[in-house]
Structure formats: structure tokens, C-alpha cells
């Protein structure tokens, strides 16, 4: 055995990779992380530049097909109703995410039992709760305890951030209706916390945090992993996971600056997101795994889920000052999260408000794509300045995050025609928005208009029923049965016992909330399992 054989190889330095790298390195494992992107230099982030929003529409766009950096791989969306987002670099998509931090709810893990659809997860909320709690500490989650939408005991480690004017105005409207709302949970510290600085509320979270406050894993987690000996190789794009003669994963072949290299390892963890992970498993086909690695179930890449969320806006006379950050949730609502069959669909939605004035260019689409006749009203010409004056600082936007149920025809495959800069196949997404998801979004959007009215909006309308969410899930689902799942309840591949999937690919259903909290909790749980069972774990010795 070579001396540079890692105890653990982690592929992908995003949310799950950061959680696992920190935990395993601190437990004494030798950890190597391969990341196809690079570190993001805080001074390179666009948020403090006057043209930050223009940059966010180009080199900092969440869609890799728009961004087109060398580390991005092409994603064919010809057959997809959903537009994709992700970021490739240390920190992964947490670099650009809004930092909405949402635990899934107990019912999310029991959708078959409770609602007769899809499948139950092999884990429960209660099993995951301790790991939610641990990653919430590590990532500096701010929030208010006592939310009646969750089981008792949910108390974020840091006090809630201010809900700001927009949150208060809408909260009062929700109270008029008797509807649930709660101060938002954010992976943004309300006070200095570990590696993170107290949020100064620049309001540009989705362009990368310019002050190192946001709980992106490059800021919050990787420093600890590196301090405990983890080695992070950037611009290292993995081409395939290799197997030894016993069928165990023994490392990965990767390209770094155009040179093919091999990183040997005893154990391999994949955290490349719900598109990158199935892409890599499919690229790792071999004689023993002709349909892709760990794919005896045929489910690698299938059951792709995303959150095609809806948005509605209202105009308000009050000066909402909503350029004040953070961009993450001001308030959220779980009023319509749980199933009510009378609505004509199952499952539900979390709503949340994020400030809009930090994205004034976004007003263009809010008006020109607006429903209810808004798109037909003048916007350009003499109307432009009136519209901007009426909306910047005077607009509240609801985001309606729908649960999205798994369907096998929604899938990720390899695109051999569109290749990345190393000649590796791109990913192809086939996605049709399900009828239940469409009904769910439509119904909740109508209710959100009622909320705007109750909050005093002078005018309210729906702006989009199919926003890109960046939430890529379900393509290597977990389950107890190897015939109907790719990994088991620990993320361990049924077919390759020393191969683990640690990202959102494991999701059995999408849940109706932003997935980062659950991704991180699952990764933490897998990492803890590996430490506890290190003596029983099969590893490659080749």
C-alpha cells in the first residue's frame, strides 16, 4: 500500500463534503478531498461592487451553463422543465446560497405512511434531530426557539436575526388571517461564532458573503478540516471511482490541470450534488458494474427532484428598507405545509420572504413576466422609473417552496456530446414538473396573494410558477431494499460497501423545504457512523 493512501477520499467540497471532512479529520482519519473548482477569494466576490447584480447574471450566475467557468461541466436541459443551479468550488453551492436553513419535518420522512405517496425514508426526524443540532452549531444557525411547526426542543444555537420591516409588515398580515409565520432560520450568525463573523447585513448573500459571515462550508467547516490534517486538492475533477479486485472502491482517477492522476483510498465518499453524483457513478461503469457504479437497482440518476418554486410579490406604501440583509429568510410560514386532501393535492409548502431590493434588476422580470395583466402594462420608457420608484424598497416577495415527489422518468443521464474541459461527458437532465407539484404551487400562490392583501399591499401578483431552485435531489436514493434503492440508511452503497453517498442524492422525497440542513445532517450522521463503526467497516487494502 502506498503511504499516500487516504483513509477517506471525499469527492466534492460542498455542503456535505465540508461536514464530512471536518468530522472525519477531527476524529483522526486521514482525509483527502478532491474538488473540481477552486477556493473563492472573498475579495473576488461581486457583492460590494456597484455592478454586483450584473456580475451575478454572468460570471457569478448559479446556472453553470451561463457561468461557463472551466470547472463547470455542461448540463443539457433540452428535456427539462427545470433550470439548474449549483456552484463548483470549495464550499459548493453554499457559496452562493441565500442561507435559508430549514429542517425537514417529521411528516417528510413518512410520506407513504401518512399520505400514501412515494416512499417513507428509512430514517426518521427523531433519528436525524441530533445531527441537525450538531451541524446547526457548526454552521452558525440563527433562529427563534419555540416554533409550533416543529416538535418541541428546536432551538437554534444563535438568536434570531431581525425580521426587518418587510417581515414585520407581512407578519401582521398573517396574524390577521390567523396563519402561521415564524422568524426565519438562517445559516448566518447573529453574533460572532467560531470562524464566522456576525452578519453586517449587506444583503448580498446570493453573490457570496463579502465579510465571511455566511455559513458556507469554505468559511465555516473546511478551516477545521484542514487544521486537523485534511488535504484539499482543488481544480481536481474526478473522472471515475476505481475498484479493487474485491469490488471495493480503492480511490479515484482525476484530472488536475489537464494531468490524469490517481488518489488511492480505503473508503470513498461522494458529495457532488444530485446531478454530479449520479454523473460520476454513471461515468464509473466497469465490467462488474456495466450500468454504472452502485447501480444494480437501476436507480442511479433516476427520481431526480428539484423545487420548482413559485413567487408572488406585493407593492406596499411603507418604506420597507429591504436592502437591509441578510438575503436569507426574514420570516417563513408553515401554515400550508401538511397535507389537506381537500386542496386537491398531497404534501405542502414552506413559504418564506427574502429581501428584494438587493436585486433591483430583478424588478424587470417581476413586472414583465407578472401575471394578472401586469406583464401587459407598460414597463419601459416613461414607466420604468415609476415602476422602480414604486417597487424598490416597497415590495415584498413570497417564495413558495413545494414538496416535489419522485418520478423515475425525471432523471440524470450522461451527455456524451457536450463534454467538460477535460473531455468528460456532461450531464443531461430530463424533468417534467409533476401534476401534484403544479397544483401545490398554484394553490399556495393564490393563498400568498391573500397574504399580501391582508398585509396591506396596494397591488399583488404572481411573478413565476417555476423558478430554478438549485436543489438537486433524489438520484441515488436511500432505502432498506437493494432492489429499490442505491444506498442504505447510512448512505452506504448497497453494491459497494466502502462507497458512501453523502449529499442530496440520497433524498427519498424532496421535502417542502430548502434541503441544505438535511443534506448536512445526513452527512454528519454518516460521518459519525463511520467513526463509530471504523473497526467493522470493510475497506480497500489494494
Amino acid at each position, binding site marked *: 500500500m502506498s503511504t499516500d493512501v487516504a483513509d477517506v477520499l471525499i469527492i466534492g467540497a460542498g455542503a456535505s463534503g465540508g461536514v464530512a471532512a471536518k468530522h472525519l479529520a477531527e476524529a483522526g482519519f486521514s482525509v483527502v478531498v478532491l474538488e473540481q473548482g477552486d477556493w473563492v477569494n472573498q475579495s473576488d466576490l461581486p457583492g*460590494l461592487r*456597484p*455592478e*454586483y*447584480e*450584473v*456580475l451575478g*447574471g*454572468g460570471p457569478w450566475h448559479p446556472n453553470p451553463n451561463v457561468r461557463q467557468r472551466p470547472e463547470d461541466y455542461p448540463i443539457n436541459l433540452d428535456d427539462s422543465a427545470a433550470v439548474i443551479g449549483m456552484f463548483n468550488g470549495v464550499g459548493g453551492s453554499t457559496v452562493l446560497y441565500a442561507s435559508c436553513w430549514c429542517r425537514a*419535518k*417529521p*411528516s417528510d*420522512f*413518512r410520506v407513504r405512511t*401518512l399520505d400514501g405517496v412515494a416512499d417513507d425514508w428509512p430514517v*426518521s426526524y*427523531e433519528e436525524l434531530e441530533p445531527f441537525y443540532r450538531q451541524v446547526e452549531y457548526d454552521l452558525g444557525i440563527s433562529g427563534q426557539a*419555540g416554533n*409550533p*411547526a416543529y*416538535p418541541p426542543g428546536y432551538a437554534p444555537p444563535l*438568536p*434570531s*436575526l*431581525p*425580521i*426587518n420591516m418587510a417581515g*414585520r409588515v407581512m*407578519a*401582521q398580515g398573517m*396574524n390577521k388571517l*390567523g396563519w*402561521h*409565520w*415564524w*422568524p426565519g432560520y438562517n445559516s448566518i450568525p*447573529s453574533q460572532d461564532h467560531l470562524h464566522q463573523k*456576525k452578519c*453586517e*447585513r*449587506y*444583503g448580498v448573500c446570493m453573490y457570496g458573503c463579502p*465579510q465571511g459571515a455566511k455559513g458556507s462550508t469554505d468559511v465555516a467547516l473546511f478551516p477545521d478540516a484542514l487544521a486537523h490534517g485534511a488535504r484539499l486538492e482543488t481544480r481536481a475533477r474526478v473522472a471515475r471511482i476505481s475498484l479493487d479486485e474485491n469490488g471495493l472502491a480503492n480511490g479515484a482517477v482525476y484530472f488536475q490541470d489537464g494531468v490524469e492522476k490517481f488518489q488511492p483510498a480505503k473508503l470513498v465518499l461522494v458529495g457532488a450534488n444530485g446531478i454530479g453524483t449520479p454523473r460520476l457513478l454513471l461515468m464509473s461503469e466497469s465490467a462488474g458494474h456495466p450500468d454504472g457504479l452502485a447501480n444494480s437497482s437501476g436507480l442511479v440518476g433516476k427520481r431526480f427532484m428539484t423545487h420548482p418554486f413559485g413567487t408572488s410579490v406585493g407593492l406596499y406604501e411603507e418604506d420597507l*428598507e429591504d*436592502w*437591509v440583509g441578510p438575503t436569507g429568510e426574514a420570516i417563513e410560514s*408553515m401554515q400550508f*405545509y401538511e397535507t389537506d386532501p381537500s386542496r386537491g393535492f398531497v404534501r405542502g409548502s414552506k413559504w418564506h420572504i427574502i429581501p428584494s431590493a*438587493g436585486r*433591483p434588476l430583478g424588478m*424587470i422580470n417581476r413586472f414583465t413576466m407578472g401575471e394578472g395583466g401586469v406583464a401587459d402594462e407598460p414597463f*419601459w*420608457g*416613461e414607466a*420604468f*422609473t*415609476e415602476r*422602480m*420608484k414604486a417597487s424598490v*424598497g416597497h415590495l415584498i416577495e413570497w417564495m413558495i417552496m413545494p414538496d416535489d415527489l419522485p418520478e423515475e422518468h425525471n432523471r440524470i443521464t450522461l451527455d456524451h456530446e457536450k463534454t467538460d474541459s477535460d473531455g468528460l461527458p456532461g450531464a443531461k437532465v430530463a424533468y417534467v414538473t409533476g401534476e401534484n407539484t403544479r397544483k401545490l404551487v398554484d394553490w399556495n400562490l393564490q393563498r400568498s396573494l391573500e397574504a399580501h392583501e391582508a398585509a396591506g399591499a396596494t397591488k399583488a401578483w404572481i411573478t413565476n410558477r417555476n423558478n430554478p431552485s438549485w436543489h438537486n435531489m433524489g438520484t441515488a436514493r436511500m432505502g432498506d431494499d437493494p432492489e429499490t434503492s442505491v444506498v442504505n440508511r447510512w448512505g452506504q452503497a448497497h453494491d459497494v460497501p466502502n462507497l458512501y453517498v453523502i449529499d442530496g442524492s440520497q433524498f427519498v422525497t424532496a421535502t417542502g423545504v430548502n434541503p441544505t440542513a438535511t443534506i448536512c445532517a445526513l452527512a454528519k450522521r454518516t460521518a459519525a457512523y463511520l467513526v463509530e463503526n471504523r473497526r467493522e467497516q470493510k475497506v480497500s487494502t489494494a
Partner: protein
Amino acid sequence: MSITDVTIQPASAPVLSEEQRARLAVLADLLISGGAGLPSASGAEVPTQWIDRVLAVRADLDATVRAVLELEGDPGEVLAGLRADSPEVFGAFAMAVAGAYLINPRVRRGLGYPGPAPMKNPALPDEAEAYLEGGILDVVVARGPIYRPTPQG
């Protein structure tokens, strides 16, 4: 940060010719004519200054803007034609113009922004609590749990 702190970096993209800027001024003013206390696009120096900053960082918009400026004919008809027949081109051109307009510190100030670029707004010590004054959260708590627990068995 104040307006005087904004440093305008030289554009790295080739600058527009005077003819192109003149054409851009006409087209941009049709998109942003001014009013409600805010200037027109040319009044906000979009064609003479701020467009350079946009084109410097967005090669895709640079190509579109230059292509649109090459289109001959009545400016209003040019824009109407693009909007009807090439909405993506129209959208990109309009985005470039609006993006340049919204960079102007005077425009930002007119829209109510506290500074020429995103600025820190640190929370006051009791600010989070202040927004919850009046017991607005109490009624939510009083209604009791609204989650479905994990089924037993």
C-alpha cells in the same frame, strides 16, 4: 462608504465609439425616459460612462449591445422589432441598459438606497426583539402545534 468612495475602474472591454454612444443614448432613452424624480438613461450617463462598466464584465452583453447598435432604422421601430421578433436580444439589451442605469450612485440615491453599493447595516443590540414588539408572535404560539408527528409503530 460615500459616493466619492466609488472607484470607477477602466473598462477592459473595447470602448464604444462616439457614434455608438450617440446611438445608444437614443435607444437607452426610449427604454428609460426618466421621471418620478429620476433621470433618463442619458441623463444618468448610461451611454457615456456606466455602460462601460457593464460591458467590461459581461462579454455576452457586450456582443448583444454592439449588435443592437448596428441596427439601422427608426430607434423606436428597432426596439419594437426586437421585442416582437427577438425577445432574448431585447431582454439582454434592456438588461445592459438598466444594469448600467442602476449603477449610477445618483440613481441609487434617488431610489432610496443608503449608498452607491451594498453597505453594512449592522443590527442594533435589541433590533430583533423590537420587530417582535406588541406580542405579534404570541398569537402564533398560542394556536399550538401545527406539525404532524412521526407515526408510531
